[in-house]
């Protein structure tokens, strides 16, 4: 299973987390690997963290200049529903959930649309994304893009 992560690192332009899931499940089904040969629980969590950070690192270059979008705007109000998992204003202390503050607008839109169209595998985001219109997704994207990112406040990322 160690190769899984190497493969992820070498593939650009995909939703990396969905790739993890696909690769793991493919291996599970194809080789009928015994449970003890699978990634351990801490390894799996570590893998999520690493993949999330890699996705974020890939985005940093594309960070746009910040426009100001108020915390009470329609855009912000839509995002406040994300905060229960992804943290207040998209800043989260455990990056098992993707931090959303500062995410480039198009990145957010593409990811949500991929979830909505079942092009990206996950757990529940495919469901949640179906509850929002494209216009609402674009609004949410504009709010998160307006915030300065603070992924590095995540102590585990040091």
């Amino acid at each position: 299973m160690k190769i899984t992560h190497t493969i992820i690192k070498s593939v650009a332009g995909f939703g990396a987390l969905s790739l993890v899931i696909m690769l793991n499940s493919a291996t599970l089904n194809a080789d009928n690997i015994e449970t003890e040969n699978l990634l351990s629980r801490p390894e799996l969590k570590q893998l999520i963290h690493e993949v999330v950070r890699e996705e974020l690192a890939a985005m940093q270059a594309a960070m746009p200049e910040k426009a100001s979008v108020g915390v009470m705007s329609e855009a912000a109000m839509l995002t406040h529903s994300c905060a229960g998992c992804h943290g207040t204003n998209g800043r989260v202390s455990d990056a098992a959930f993707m931090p959303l503050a500062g995410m480039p607008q198009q990145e957010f839109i593409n990811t949500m649309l991929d979830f909505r169209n079942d092009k990206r595998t996950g757990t529940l985001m495919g469901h949640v994304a179906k509850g929002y219109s494209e216009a609402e997704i674009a609004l949410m994207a504009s709010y998160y893009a307006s915030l300065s990112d603070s992924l590095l406040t995540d102590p585990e990322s040091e």
Partner: protein
Amino acid sequence: MQRRDFIKLAGCAALSSTLSTRSLFAATPPHIVIIGGGVGGATTAKYLRLMDANVRVTLIEKNPVYIRPYGSSEVINGHIGMKDLEVTYTALKDKYGVNVVIDEAIGFDPDKQLVKLWQGGSIHYDRLVVSPGIELLYGQVPGYSKTLADKKIPSGWIPGQQTRLLREQLLAMPQGGTFLIAAPPAPYRCPPGPYERGALVAEWCQKHNPTAKVIITDPKNKFVTDQTMMLGWHRRYGFNIPPEFMEGMPEDVNNTGKPGMLEWIPEKDGGKIMALDAENMTVETEGSDIKADVINIIPPMRAGIVAQKMGLTNEQGWCPVNHYSFESELHPKVHVLGDASVSNMPKSGFAANTQAKVIAKAIIDLLAGREPDSPTLENVCYAVAGRDYGIFVADVFKLNDKGRIARQSMPRYAPLDATEVQLRLGEIYQQTWMKTFTEDCFA
């Protein structure tokens, strides 16, 4: 009291840099008083201060430390301890400048807009938010009472001593014993909760008491997450999935017909609880009398007592509200949220958390003379069928043409063909959510 509060509030005017500096109310800061420091009350307080640094917020809560109900069944199987459920109000006070008053609201004067406190005095509000949680109606099960719940037949649906007692009773259960959970009628707090609890107890028994039985009696014929939870029960605890839930089940399902460790008795099979005989440790259901070594009754419930005292409840014991602002239909300028309020949303922490943000915005709009917007709300409940087996229900809500909260049409549950890794990730997310969610509400 009022003088002391005034001084405290004045001290809160020094704002941390996390707060918004723009305000509509710089000249005359309005005062919002919140009764109840659970998820709904705490989130409202925090987001009010995030949205407008010039509103003054007082939170009245009788317990100095919050014991979170979400995830509290994990105390019973020893996955966590009671200490892990504790949440403080430190960040609300220090980071957000919320005036936290540890006291009990005992009534209010809606005309003068005053909340009366147990320790004396009263506090004036411009808008009042009530987040009262639930009251458990032990007496609605004949033979059951709060005294019995505290000493012998715990409910553990509001976490505390009864949760600890359930843990002790599970540990003390004889080999091959029976652990009975009586699920409540709808509506109730934490829809997947009774079934997740059954799974957690069964998982513990597999390891420590492998011939034990877990029985869930139910006054309903379906429940939130049913098919997905049943699939987990089947895979882990030999549960036989009833024929009416078989549609779309994956190929690995193989109902043996032999009794597994976990059994679910729905209403149609006589699962409705009629009475408790505590002396003989027997529950009388419509179908039969069931003797058990541990009896865990989750009784019917209604809005928390303070909401009833304030006249905010309807005949069913819940609080009717306007869905734009959660303003009470019975008292103007009073907003009620969370488990106590009437809507199509589940009675969950996540629901209370998103309602709180809608209320915070609506209150600021109303104070500024604007109409509240039509809100979008969300609910996500993670649940586990055991270690490495996480499932969920996810919903997005908007208002319908009658101005009432309506669930958007979308899939709600984990897919029945979820891969093993998706289920493992679901459980990792469930565990992570306990932390990130608590932070969004309290920190």
